[in-house]
C-alpha cells in the first residue's frame, strides 16, 4: 500500500469553501460543531443549482457509513463528497469513500476536532475511541493494554495505530 494511504492526513480546520467543480454532491456532517458549516455548504450548493444529498448525525456510525456506501454506489462521475466533523468521524467516512473508488480530489474535508481518535490495537485488533493526541497513551478497550498512539493512520480502516506503550522495556 502506498504512502498516501498511511500518512496522517493534514486536513483543514477552517472552512475550505465549496468545491464548485462537481455536478452532484453529498454533504455529511458529524457532531454539533459541524452542523452549521454543513448547512452553509448545502445552501451555497442549492443556490448554484447543484443536486445535494445531506446527512447529519452525531458520529460516523456503522449506519452512517452504510448510507454513504449506498450513495457512492449510485453516484456517477461528477459527484463530490463534502465532510465536516471530528477527525475520527471524517476519517472513517473518507476511508469508506476511497474504498468505493472516490478520489481524494473529489472529497472536501473540514475537521472540527482533531483530538478524538480511533485507535487500532496492534495486539488484539480492537478499535478504541479515545481522546488522545498523537504520542499520547490510552487504554485499549479490548485487551486493556496501555497503547501509545503512533503517527500512522490507515486511511482504509480510518484508525491510528496503537501499540503497547512499554513494549520496548519488555523485550
Amino acid at each position: 500500500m502506498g504512502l498516501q494511504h498511511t500518512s496522517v492526513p493534514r486536513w483543514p480546520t477552517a472552512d475550505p469553501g465549496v468545491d464548485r467543480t462537481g455536478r452532484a454532491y453529498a454533504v455529511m456532517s458529524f457532531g454539533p460543531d459541524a452542523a452549521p458549516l454543513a448547512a452553509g455548504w448545502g445552501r451555497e450548493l442549492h443556490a448554484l443549482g447543484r443536486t445535494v444529498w445531506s446527512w447529519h448525525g452525531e458520529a460516523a456510525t456503522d449506519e452512517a457509513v452504510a448510507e454513504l456506501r449506498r450513495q457512492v454506489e449510485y453516484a456517477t462521475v461528477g459527484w463530490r463528497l463534502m465532510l465536516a466533523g471530528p477527525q475520527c468521524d471524517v476519517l472513517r467516512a473518507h476511508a469508506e469513500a476511497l474504498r468505493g473508488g472516490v478520489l481524494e480530489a473529489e472529497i472536501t474535508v473540514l475537521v472540527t476536532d482533531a483530538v478524538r481518535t480511533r485507535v487500532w490495537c496492534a495486539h488484539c485488533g480492537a478499535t478504541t475511541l479515545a481522546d488522545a493526541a498523537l504520542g499520547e497513551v490510552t487504554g485499549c478497550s479490548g485487551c486493556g493494554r496501555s497503547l501509545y498512539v503512533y503517527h500512522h493512520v490507515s486511511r482504509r480502516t480510518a484508525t491510528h495505530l496503537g501499540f503497547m506503550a512499554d513494549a520496548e522495556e519488555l523485550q
Partner: protein
Amino acid sequence: MTLKLVVRRSTEIAEGIREIVMTRPDDGPLPAHPPGSHVVVDCGPQRNAYSLTNCGIDPGAYTVAVLRRPTADGGSGGSEQMHRFQPGDRVALSPPRSAFPPVSTARRHLLIAGGIGITPLLSHARNAVRWGADVRLLYVHRPGAGAYADELSELLGERAQRVTEKSEFSVLLRQALVSQPMGTHLYVCGPAALMDRVLQEAAAAGWPPQRLHLERFTPAELDPGQPFTASLGRSRRQVSVPAGTSLLEALENAGVEVPNMCRQGVCGECRVPVLAGRPLHRDEFLSEDERVAGDSVMCCVSRSETETLEVDL
C-alpha cells in the same frame, strides 16, 4: 536502444489507413508493454510516434495503423514513408513506451476515439476484454474510415458505440459523461479539436483531471513561448533559452548532452529533474500528478513559467 525490425505485412484496412506488422528478423519475442504504449519509428527524415494496437502481453509482433497525412509541401509527414514500407523492409524503432496505460483501480474504462485515434484504444479494449474489466467505447470517424470497426464490435458488442455523424457523437458524448459509475476513468485519443472538446465537456460535467487521460497522436501546435534562463545546478552554468528555441536545443547549443528521441514531447526520453522554478509543461508524457509535482520537465517541448528554471544538469 533501438529495435531493428522487419516489416512483415502492410495492409490497407480503411480509407487512407494502413496497418503495418513488424517482427524481429528471427521472429523472436519482443519486449512486452502495457496497453496504450507507443513506439517512435524512424520514418525517413522524421521520427513519428505510433500507438501499438497489441494489448502488450508476450508480443511476437508489433502492429501499428497509420493514417496517410499528405502535407502541403509533399511529405514532411513521415506517414508517407510509413505507407511506402513493403514486406521485408527494415525499420528502426524505439522500444515501446508507456504514457497512456489503463488505471488499474478503475471501476470502468470509458474509451473515446476519434478517427485514427482508435489505435491505442483498441489495445485498451483488447486488454479489458482479456481481463474481464468493465469497458465502454465511443468511436467517431469519417464514413468509410472506421479502422477496426468489425473487430471492435466483435470484441465489445453492445459496449461499443460507433458513429460517423458529429451531431450524433455530441449527443452520445454528453450522455456518456453524466452516466458513468463512480470510479470510471476516461481515455481519449483523436484529433486535437476532439480531445479538447471531450476534456472541456468532461470538466463541465464534473470530471476531475485525475480521471481524464489523453494521448495526442499529433504533436500539439506549440507557440514559440517566452524566453527564460536555464540554470544548471551541477555545472553552475546559465543557459539562456530564447523564444522559439526549445530548452533541449538551447542545452545542445551550449554543449550539454541530453538523451532524446521524439523531440515532440511524447516519448519521455528527455526528462530532466527540476531543482527550482516552475516548469511550463507542454508535453504529452507526464501524468497530471507529475505535472503538479513540478520536479521534472520534458525539455524538448516544455518551458518555464518562472524567469529561471534550475535543472539538475
